[in-house]
C-alpha cells in the first residue's frame, strides 16, 4: 500500500516538476540604456548578443542551432534579445523548444526603434536575426542573417 502511495506521489512530483520546467524560461525586459551593462557583464571577455524575433522565419530556423551551441559551450557568454511585440508566453515556448529556456534571455520592452538601436549600432536598422559578437580585444562585429557557428565557436567558444 505504502509503495502504491509512494509511486503515486513520485509520479505527481515528476508531473509537476515537468510542468514547471516547461515554463521555466525567464525573460528580462531590455530597455534603452541597458546595452552598456550587457557588454560589461562579459568582464572584458568575448560575448555574443543575438537579436531574434518570434515572427521571423529565419530566426525560428536558427534557434535550435543556438540551443546546440549553448549546450556545447556552457560557459560561453551569449545574450538573447527577442525584438517582436508578442506575448511572453510565445517567446518562452520558442525558447524552450530550442533548448534555450535556461539561457540569458531578454525581450525588448519599448518600441524597437532607432532610439533603442542607436547605442547598439547606429547603422543597424533592425533586421532579424542579427548577432553582435565582441571578441576578447573588444572589437564588435555585426552579422545580419544566419550565423557561422564554427566562426562563433572560434571567437567566443569555451569547448576545449
Amino acid at each position: 500500500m505504502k509503495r502504491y502511495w509512494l509511486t503515486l506521489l513520485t509520479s505527481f512530483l515528476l508531473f509537476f516538476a515537468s510542468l514547471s520546467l516547461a515554463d521555466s524560461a525567464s525573460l528580462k525586459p531590455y530597455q534603452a540604456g541597458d546595452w552598456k551593462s550587457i557588454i560589461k557583464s562579459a568582464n572584458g571577455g568575448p560575448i555574443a548578443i543575438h537579436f531574434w524575433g518570434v515572427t521571423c522565419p529565419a530566426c525560428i530556423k536558427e534557434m535550435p542551432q543556438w540551443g546546440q551551441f549553448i549546450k556545447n559551450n556552457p560557459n560561453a557568454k551569449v545574450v538573447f534579445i527577442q525584438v517582436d511585440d508578442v506575448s511572453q508566453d510565445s517567446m518562452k515556448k520558442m525558447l524552450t523548444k530550442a533548448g534555450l529556456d535556461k539561457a540569458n534571455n531578454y525581450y525588448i520592452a519599448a518600441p524597437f526603434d532607432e532610439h533603442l538601436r542607436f547605442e547598439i549600432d547606429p547603422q543597424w536598422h533592425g533586421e532579424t536575426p542579427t548577432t553582435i559578437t565582441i571578441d576578447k580585444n573588444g572589437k564588435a562585429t555585426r552579422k545580419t542573417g544566419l550565423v557561422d557557428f564554427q566562426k562563433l565557436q572560434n571567437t567566443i567558444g569555451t569547448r576545449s
Partner: protein
Amino acid sequence: MANQFTRSLSHLFLLSALLMGALSFGAHAQMQMDHSSMAGSKPKNMCQSVGLECANAATPFFTADGKLLLSWTANGVVSVAQSTDLGKSFTSPVKIAEHGKSLDAGADARPQIVVDKQGNVFLAYAFFKDANWNAQINTARSTDEGKTFTLPVSLVNDGSSQRFPSVLIKPDESIFISWIDKRLVAAAKQGGEKRLGGSIAYSFSQDGGQTFQAERFANESSCECCRIAASLDPKGIPVVAYRAIFTGGIRDQASQVILEKGSQPVRRVADDDWKTDACPHHGPSIAVSGSGKFHVAWYTQGSKRSGVFYANSSNQGISYSRPSRVGTERANVSRPYLYASGLQVWLVWKEFNGSKSAVYLKESGDDGKTWTTPKILTSTAGYSDHPLLLARANEVFLSWLTRDDGYQLISIGQKQ
C-alpha cells in the same frame, strides 16, 4: 524503523509535490497575466491605451470632400477616426478589431484604408492567426462614411500565411490589393524543399471590397517581411515595388505592372546584391508620375551599395537610372516615401542623429532629373512612425505619427 523512514520520505514527497504544484500554479498565473494585460514586468513608461497617442502606425486617406480618415493600430486594436480640420481634432474613434498581442505590429505593418467617392470605406490589416505565426489579412467595410464598420472577414480562404496588405483605389473605384502570401512556400516545405520567403499575391474588387477576384501571384519569390509599395500610373494601372528574392537568395528590389488580365514581367530596380536570409522589415516606396515614369526609393545593405537609394525608369521598369543615395552618407537614414503629380516628385525620409528623428524632404520639378537640397520638415525626440505623403486636391501633405508630438499633418507643397 524502515517504516518510519518510508513515512517521512512520503511526507517529504507530499510536501515537494505541493510545493512544485504551487510553483507551477504561480508560473501559470504569470502566463495568464502576460496574455490578459500589459502589466507585470512591463516597464512603467509604456504607452498603454488604444488611442492615437499610443499608436505604432497610422495610415491617412483624404476623401473626395476633403475629410481626413485616419486608421491606426495601438496595443492590439485597429481604429478609425475622422478629422475635418486637417488632423488637429478627431471624431471619437471606431474600433474595427481587437487582436491583443496577435495583431501584426511589426515595423513595416500598417492598416490600409481607402474611401470611394460615395464615402464607402475599405480597410485591411493583418494579425497572427495561430501558434505557428501564420498571419491572416482581414478586411472591413463601411457604407456610412466610416461611422460603423462590418465585422472583419478574412480576405482569402487559405490555411497558410497572408501578411502586409497594400491597398489602392483606382479612378474607376475598383480596389487593388496586393500582399505577401506564404502558401507556395508552405507547399514547397511540405514537399521537403528548404525555402524561405513568400510570394507577391494580388486581387481586384469591383464592389468596394465586398468580393474579390480569385487571387493570383505576381512573383512567387519575395521577402516575407517587407511592405509592398504601390502606385497608380496615369492610366490608373497599379505598379508595385517590393523586395524580391532573386537567384542565390539575393533580396533586391523589383517593380512590376499589374494589369487586370495579369501581372507583367518582374523588373529589377537595382543590382544591390543583398544576399541575406534576414527579415529587413524595410520595404520600398514607389510613385508613378504624370509622364508614366516610375520613381522608386528603397533601403538595402547589399554588397554593392548600402543605405537608402532612389532610381527611376522611363520604360515601365525595363531599365532604371543609376541609384543615387538618399540622405547623408553614414547617417542613420530610413523609411523613404515618394509622391508624384505631373512632373513633380516629393521624396521624404527619416534621419536619426542619436537623440532626434527628423523627416527630410527633397523635391524635383522635372520628373526626377534634378532635386532641391534636402531640408528638415519636422523632428521628434521619441518614437515615430514612417513618414507618408498624400494630397488633398492640389495640396501635398506629410503624414507623420509621433509619440511625443502627436499626429502631424504638415502641408509641404502645391501641385502645379
